[in-house]
């Protein structure tokens, strides 16, 4: 019953298009899956202009049937009480029987975080397609440009990725774990904390990761002797040692990233705090504290992650370069050695992998952004 997935129009990633179409007004019977994609929206009343509910409405596109669970059509809709009219079992009955208005007791919504999974999946699907298309175009372009005839050494590539992929993951974790609290604290507290974070991130976004890597080696490896200055213990030999040898490079790459993230997040929080809908929430009877807790983080995170998309795509090349500082046998070594050896086949596979990894980082950023702020921007 989800065969109409491919019938969905191409304008889905245009944020405006679904909004112009009132929910339930699509009269085409074949485009109506018997599903109820938005579940937690129940908490938000129809007539309450609070928070993301007006924005979630267009997301409840009837054609987004990617994760329609079989239980959704068996459970009767009436059991969930009055709610926003979404796509029902029968398309014809929607305009005929409008839902009753929400009772007054629901005007004060709960603090539960709302998710609407199917639209997010749909958004992620489009971004995934975009990513794959980019990799495909890059692969074709490279095969034309490099004209390699020999097959690439895929085992070698996999071996190299065993270094680069964990390094990337570690960077992202460091950036998130350090950057997020810094950004939120700076934005919410202001004052000296904000000043310190801003000063740090002004330096952090300007520092060359290679140089930071060398400084870290100088301090942690040479002077203090805590970590090793370079080289790599293979995973098969000692997983802990492998992780340990990735720690310094990950710090050199992750710290600037964390500071950049903190800056973006701080700006996002600042903007969210003066947004007029916070006032609206106050007039709806929320305390300021509740309203800030409920709305500001997601708004700020969405904004910050949107700004982080370009830095995220720059992380991979930086990673490839910093690997060399630590003599890590990763993608960077593959790229440089095949370049200096004139090995077109391996150069091609290394470059395609580079493009794919950049796309992966962007994709992760986009999905996280969609999770944080479900208004799902089209471009970016």
């Amino acid at each position, binding site marked *: 019953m989800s065969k109409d997935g491919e019938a969905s129009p191409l304008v889905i990633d245009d944020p405006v298009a679904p909004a112009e179409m009132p929910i339930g007004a699509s009269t085409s019977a074949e485009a109506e899956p018997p599903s109820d994609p938005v579940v937690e929206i129940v908490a938000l009343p129809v007539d309450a202009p609070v928070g993301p509910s007006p924005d979630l409405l267009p997301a409840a596109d009837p054609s987004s049937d990617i994760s329609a669970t079989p239980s959704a059509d068996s459970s009767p809709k009436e059991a969930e009480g009055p709610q926003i009219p979404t796509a029902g079992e029968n398309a014809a009955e929607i305009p005929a029987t409008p839902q009753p208005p929400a009772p007054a007791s629901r005007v004060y919504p709960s603090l539960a975080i709302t998710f609407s999974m199917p639209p997010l999946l749909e958004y992620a699907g489009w971004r995934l397609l*975009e990513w794959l*298309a*980019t*990799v495909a*175009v*890059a692969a074709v372009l*490279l095969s034309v*440009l*490099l004209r390699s005839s020999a097959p690439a050494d895929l085992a070698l590539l996999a071996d190299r990725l065993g270094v680069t992929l964990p390094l990337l993951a570690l960077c992202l974790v460091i950036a998130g774990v350090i950057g997020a609290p810094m950004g939120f604290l700076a934005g919410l507290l202001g004052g000296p904390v904000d000043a310190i974070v801003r000063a740090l991130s*002004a*330096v952090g*976004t*300007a*520092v*060359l*990761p*290679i*140089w930071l890597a*060398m*400084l870290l*080696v*100088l301090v942690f490896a*040479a002077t203090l002797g805590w970590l090793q*200055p370079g080289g790599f213990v293979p995973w098969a030999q000692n997983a802990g040692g492998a992780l340990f040898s990735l720690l310094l490079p990950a710090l050199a790459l992750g710290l600037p990233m964390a500071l950049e993230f903190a800056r973006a997040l701080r700006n996002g929080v600042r903007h969210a705090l003066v947004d007029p809908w916070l006032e609206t929430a106050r007039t709806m009877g929320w305390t300021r504290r509740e309203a800030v807790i409920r709305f500001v983080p997601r708004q700020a995170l969405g904004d910050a992650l949107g700004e982080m998309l*370009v830095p995220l*795509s*720059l992380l*991979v*090349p*930086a990673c*490839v*370069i910093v690997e*060399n*500082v630590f003599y890590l046998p990763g993608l*960077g070594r593959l*790229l*440089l050695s095949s*370049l200096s050896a*004139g090995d*077109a086949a391996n*150069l091609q596979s290394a*470059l395609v992998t*580079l*493009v794919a990894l*950049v*796309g992966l980082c*962007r994709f992760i950023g986009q999905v996280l952004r969609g999770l944080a702020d479900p208004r799902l921007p089209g*471009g970016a």
Partner: protein
Amino acid sequence: MSLSPPPVARPLALPMIRLRLAVIATLVLLLIGFVSIVWTPYPVDQLDALAQAQAPSASHLLGTDALGRDTLSMAMKGILTSFVVSAVAAAIGLFIGIPLAVAAARWGLVAERLLIGGAGLFLSFSALGIAALLTAHFGPSALNAMLAVGLFNIAVVARQTREDLRAFQGRDYLAASRLSGLAGWELARRHVLPSLLPLLGATATAQLAHGVLLEAGLGYLGLASQPPGSSLGLMLRDAQSVMLFEPLPMLVPGAALLLIVVALQVVARGLRQEVKHAA
């Protein structure tokens, strides 16, 4: 005799002071780079076997590297290289990226999609991938770095300009001038360009900062300037092998890069902030 009150000297706001300091720092660094064309304390292409790896002294203010080259002279030349490469790259990005963004804004949705897709492809390749391709075809050179960073800049500038243009699209004064009969390029020239120019200046400065970092990264890998020439990335590469015994040749180019990029970024952010306040 005039009735107007005497002008009151108001203290400058902190962002303004910061912006001015950054502009001054940028100009000083630029001056250092240009001075290196006509004069450096020591020639950078001659190795002094008797003065290898020296600590700072009166004759060598920042010491010498493992080959006996004066670190200060090398850094001066390197600063020039950084500025020249990233300026050429920024020019490439601006001269191609801005028209692309404007054209996309004029020609509507399909052109915009194409622009986003193309920019996404360049962003995915990144300057490193483009430089590697160019090196595979033409061999390593500083020209490659300029081209690679420049091509990469096109994508970044086009995206940024498109975003800036979008902010104008809903403005009332544009609708008003459209009603009064203006359209197309004339409308853009009269009403969009004047407010867009400071934003473009900010974009250009940000690209300059970014280009300096990218050039250093490519130089470190050996994909940019080659040894007789000097670049800050190359200095880092040479200094790395001896940095545990002699950290200064590593610290100097990195600190120079940091100064350049911080100054340029502060200028870029300040310009953008100014526009926001004016609006």
